[in-house]
């Protein structure tokens, strides 16, 4: 596993290939767009998807928390797919989430899918969380240096033979966008105006790979169709 260091507002941050941010100086772990209980949310609309997405998401998150032992965990919004998601969480998963909150200070940044804090779970709630010179927001576009999620960035890279697509981090000197972490979260092309527009002077993208990240400039990745949500 090789995390990639970047600097935002002079702070050294580590991008983990599994899709989370580690800020060593502050012992802070940030994760975006967990979309817990997306499966059950879609089931209500008629698609009986496998109900294991929350479990799968936590299965990936818990080892990362064990590895970094953060003192503070910032969930960057859309932590639940809808406002009733927290209530639907199965007992086992709810217990795991509480265990996480016991080991570290949990900050729920609110997102558009979860405009209210998850009922019954510990942690602080914020629409924007300030940590030193950096603001943690669900949706990027603020005036100060920031770390955001929301858009589920994904990049298509032309390679020999075909374009390979992966979820990715997008960063310039003052803004970092995290990939969506949830098991059922698709992605939006980084070249889409919604994302590229936030990085008018270009950006670097870091595609999630097996145990490492692959880095390109925004200009080197390719425009493709939207997939999933």
């Amino acid at each position: 596993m090789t995390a990639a260091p970047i600097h935002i507002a002079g702070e050294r941050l580590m991008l983990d290939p599994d899709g989370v941010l580690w800020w060593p100086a502050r012992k802070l772990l940030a994760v975006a767009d967990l979309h817990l209980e997306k499966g059950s949310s879609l089931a209500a609309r008629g698609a009986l998807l496998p109900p294991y997405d929350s479990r799968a998401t936590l299965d990936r998150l818990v080892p990362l928390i064990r590895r970094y032992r953060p003192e503070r965990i910032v969930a960057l919004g859309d932590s639940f797919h809808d406002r009733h998601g927290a209530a639907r969480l199965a007992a086992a998963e709810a217990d795991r989430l509480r265990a996480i909150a016991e080991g570290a200070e949990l900050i729920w940044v609110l997102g558009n899918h979860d405009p209210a804090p998850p009922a019954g779970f510990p942690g602080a709630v914020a629409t924007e969380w300030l940590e030193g010179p950096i603001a943690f927001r669900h949706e990027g576009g603020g005036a100060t240096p920031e770390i955001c999620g929301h858009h589920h960035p994904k990049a298509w890279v032309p390679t020999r033979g075909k374009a390979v697509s992966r979820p990715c981090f997008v960063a310039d000197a003052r803004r970092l966008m995290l990939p969506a972490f949830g098991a059922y979260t698709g992605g939006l092309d980084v070249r889409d105006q919604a994302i590229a527009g936030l990085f008018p002077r270009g950006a670097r993208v870091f595609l999630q790979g097996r145990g490492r990240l692959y880095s390109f400039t925004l200009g080197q990745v390719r425009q493709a169709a939207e997939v999933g949500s």
Partner: protein
Amino acid sequence: MLAAARAGRSALLIAPTGAGKTLAGFLGSLADLAERPSAALHTLYISPLKALATDIARNLTAPIAGMGLPITVETRTGDTGAEARKRQRAKPPHILLTTPESLAVLLSAPDATAMFQGLAAVVVDEIHALAGTKRGDQLALCLARLATIAPAARRVGLSATVPHRAPLIAFLSAGGRADADDVSVIEAPGGADASVRMVLPEGPLPWSGHMGLLATPDIYRLVRDAGTSIVFVNTRAQAELVFQALWRLNDDGLAIALHHGSLAREQRERVEAAMAAGKLKAVVATSSLDLGIDWGNVDLVIQVGAPKGVSRLLQRIGRANHRWNEASRAVLVPANRFEVLECRAAVEGVAAHDLDGDAPPPGGLDVLAQHILGMACAGPFTADDLYAEVTRAAPYAALPRRDFDDVLRYVADGGYALSAYERHRKLFRDSEGRYHAASEAVMRRHRMNIGTIVEAPLLKVKLGRGFGGMQLGEIEEYFVSMLNPGDTFLFAGRVLRFDRLRETTVECSPAQGQDPKVPAYAGGRLPLTTYLADRVRAILERPESWDELPENVAEWLRLQKSRSRLPGRNDLLVETFPRGGKWFLVAYCFEGRNAHQTLGMLLTRRMERAGFGPLGFVATDYVVAVWSAHQPLRVAELFGEDMLGDDLEEWMAESSMLRRTFRTVAVIAGLIDRHVPGAEKNRRQVTINTDLVYDVLRKHEPDHVLLRATRADAARGLVDVGRIAGLLARAKGRVVHMALSRVSPLAVPVLLEIGRESVRAGEGEEALLAEAEEAALVAEAMGEAESPPAPQQRVHPVHRANFRRGARPSGSAVGNQGRSTLGTIRGRRQGELSLDE
């Protein structure tokens, strides 16, 4: 036919095309209706093609009117308007012509019983093309339901000549079994033998390539000298290229048209109409014209590229000269040396009337899931009754009750071990044990999603912007992901410039260009059949038969014999040799490209573990070649049967082919709906990437019924594990390893494919990304940070027309299509390969 009809017996009519079998299928019905007029729906006709149903309607209406019979004939397809549908329900015609999908929709309605209870006959046209497919599974289930509603209705199947007739008899039998003796088989005398010959391009024969563009001048002459011809090719990309190449030679201004499955429907209909009216000289077509309306005026069929199977070739040849007592004329145009062998084998197969094709597999559980929900929409049922009915459908005759119950549970609530969706069930059970559809919404949504044809994500291609543009057809999303604005590509017979992507529409403008890319479609190429492969091996094994081959080819085989050896009919020849600092392993398996792709993945895994340092592989229809850093040793062990154990399981976790298969299964089974009422604008809210679902399901419920259905499909089709299993069993103890000091003559064609074959998604992606990152880094250092990646990074394997000379592997051997641009086809001759390089 008439006798069987009068006796009320079901019948299978086997006749070559052009013997008038479709009308024969209606004989009993017409006689019956003339004698005993009735008000009810009397005969249901089901065809795999909408166009065929429409055409038959026309052909029936005229004689009925001519005889003054009071018989009404109507079609019911996806194109039928709402008003006509309503009228058909209230007052059905005597004869209704439809497709399997429209029949499934009709049967999912609560009034299906009223509509069909007077039914006397069901006619299934082109039944050989339906049996063994998912559409066939769906139709068989619908036939079983029709038999429950109208037990007296007899069935008539119309089929071309087939290698396995038992499955078709079972399809028509009331109990779904071939041995029930309730189906009369009527066989029309075979027509005149087809006259098939091979035409080779001038000059030395190409070593590789599949497009056959070098033979364009010969094809053009054949077209010019014939009356009307169909030029069949194997892929849509090839159709575009051949069409373009023919028009470059078309100094006589011959009316040559293009027809393939991705063109807009109006476009295809225009071509079909022009063909029917005798206005065309030729049409370049893919399998989109394998079936269809008889065009009496076609007098020559040209097959460009390998035929891949004898049955398929015969079907295509049958499109020429629909007078059954005259010989159909066909010309085969092989694109390379191996294809010469394959064409030769096919000509022998046709002469021997020896058909190929696999027996139909058991019915898909995904199709069953769709059917069960459809039946619940029609009315409540008990599990026992429906199970009994389903097992009367031939593909499901041996369906275990456990599978049925699992599928039923899946339909009801998702079928997960974790019962999470009690509140969102699609079916509920009443106190008497009957299953009901949960709501109107569930039913409405289901009816919008009936059907078993699932396309890859497609984007519309439009000429011009905004609302005024003309729609040309559809291409795969993945191809568009390879385009930059300004790039040109070949589609619908035109060179187009890619302007931009807007939602799901690719906006284009007309362009000029020498090097357009050519869209490829996954899964478009049929693999070589086992049977034809066996015939090719038989030719290789008999040097005395080589005299009949072109001298280039015979010479090539003789050289192979002296330098290495020839693959035997019952062994597995594996050659290893060093070349250019790498080691190559070439296995002559002859199991078709799909199986070889899978085999290549599995072999590289094993070679990795054995420490040989595999670097890549390439698969053709005949061989698979792996190259590695170190010399492969103990080669026979690599082909052990245990290859299909853990290695396969591990590979299935990440294989994009499996993901694609799962997507199809998930869509057919209704896990993901393609159409959601009122949600067209808001698709992102309701669709979900099936890859993500596959990963989660595989990890948390590996035995779920949808994964079982996916694995069953993987035994065939794109993954074709079944053929690998057969190969490994056959090769046990018979692997012949030739350790050579240099490349063998027979290995040359596959080596030329290296770097030209597409790399499939999910396979070696990490290595590809690392490579691209390195190239990007270099580009940045050279000051090109924001420019598009270097050209060698952009070569799409299918854009062979694009391939730069400089990027080729060394050597003077040149295949046909790929390495030449369209602009240089004419007049170019390829060099001979020196084996001593």
